[in-house]
């Protein structure tokens, strides 16, 4: 299991994607890549913010919405899309330190440029094949969960 810091607390990976098929494929790809961290799923940008701020359906005990150590964010979603959600999170001093990886079908230059300007940590265009997706999750897991030092989970405010 991938650990977040010296205290060996495994991080939670939060996956924000409106498409059920894609959530299933991402989950299976992570499994196939032997990433056994806790996975949480939200359907759109609004739900993502509710989760992070522990409000709405995520209000109450913190167990309902453990602070993620990594967010995989889709761009094209109903209600609040990934671009706006990214902007809000990176504009909030209490959330800015959570690494965000865009995982989307869009490979448009405009989306890539805009996401990095908004402070995204990585941008991945979803591979077309499942084996490609597994490979991407493999590298992603190795990089974010083994190689890089992530900020320790701050004490909840």
């Amino acid at each position, binding site marked *: 299991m991938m650990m977040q810091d010296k205290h060996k607390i495994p991080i939670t990976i939060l996956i924000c994607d409106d498409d059920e*098929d*894609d959530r299933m*494929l991402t989950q*299976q790809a992570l499994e196939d890549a032997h990433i056994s961290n806790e996975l949480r799923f939200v359907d759109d940008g609004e739900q993502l913010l509710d989760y992070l701020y522990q409000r709405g359906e995520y209000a109450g005990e913190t167990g309902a919405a453990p602070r993620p150590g990594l967010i995989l964010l889709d761009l094209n979603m109903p209600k609040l899309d990934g671009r706006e959600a990214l902007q809000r999170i990176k504009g909030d001093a209490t959330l800015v330190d959570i690494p965000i990886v865009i995982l989307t079908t869009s490979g448009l230059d405009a989306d890539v440029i805009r996401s990095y300007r908004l402070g995204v940590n990585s941008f991945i265009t*979803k591979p*077309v*094949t*499942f*084996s490609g*997706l597994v490979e991407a999750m493999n590298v992603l897991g190795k990089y974010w969960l083994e190689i890089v030092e992530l900020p320790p989970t701050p004490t909840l405010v």
Partner: protein
Amino acid sequence: MSDEKVSGTSSGAAAGIPPAERLLLDIFDTVREPLLVLDAEFRVTRTNRAFFQTFRVTPEGTIGKVLFDLGDRQWDIPPLRALLRDRLVAERELYDVDVDHVFPAIGRKIMLLNARLVTHGPDEPRVILLAIEDVTERRLTERRLAAQRFELERSNTALNEFAFVASHDLQEPLRKILSFGERLGTSASPLLEGNPRHYLERMLDAAARMRTLISDLLAYSQIATSETPFVTTDLAVIAHAVVADLETTIADAGARVDVGELPVIEADAPQMRQLFQNLLANALKFRRHDAPAVVHVATSSQLNGTRTITVTDNGIGFKQEHREKIFRMFERLNSRAQYEGSGMGLAICRKIVERHGGTIAATSSAGQGTTFSVMLPVTQAGREYAP
């Protein structure tokens, strides 16, 4: 009526008029556009034949009358009054002013007015010279053309948007067909033997081909809307980079690609790269199997601010009657079993070249190799971001 001396047209007024003035009067009368001379009170002191003919009025009903009272007050047009009363007095000259009006005798006309306020001396009365040109046809044609151009631009934009959205949104379900199909192949592997495995493989092959078609269509639809600026681009650098990209393909084919002198032109650099990529890949793909492929890239002519680049191969060629067909979307001359591909490569080339204001053509005969000639302008002045 004025008691001032009133002249008709030159006819019947020849006696006693000095030659120089008579010449002027004859010129006045010969001009095809209606002309009017008015006094300071807008009374008509002189007109020419063209005026009578155009507005179907007689000299008797015209000369000496105030312009605005002429022929059932058909010239009593408020904008014209304002023009002559205010603007002409202030500016002394009016150039090319359109007056759109329905004349009772001749219907709706757009008249192009030019007028001057002339004073020959401090004690001389002011005279107004008015030239009227019927530009109805011209203006209506211009409007029709402008409307057609607008409609054409709109439908072009709509088509591009459609192609983009369709191809972009079609990728989604296709990606899932491929992904779940792959999962099925893996997880049901022990159960899938013989025909069932064969069917699944065929399905996935077809889905993969569709993916190529869609992504090529997407690439095609994005050519016109590229936001990359036209910059000074060294085509030799581009061609060498493409040859380096194709290194493995070239080696596998046992081919040789010679890049000669190529020009520096203003272009969308990524699109030039795509152009050379497609042309070279095309030349390598359609090679003969009984001889090693040799491809030459060179400049063939430099004329009138354009450069013509040729890509010549010794491949299988095609019948000359197909020389236009090969540039159409999804067009293929060979079976898929022989040569893989979406049939979009050369359509993309043509669209790129045309976006740059150039042309592309191919000459070939079956078995004799092919030469693609790409003519491109050196500069793109005034063509920035042109569709």
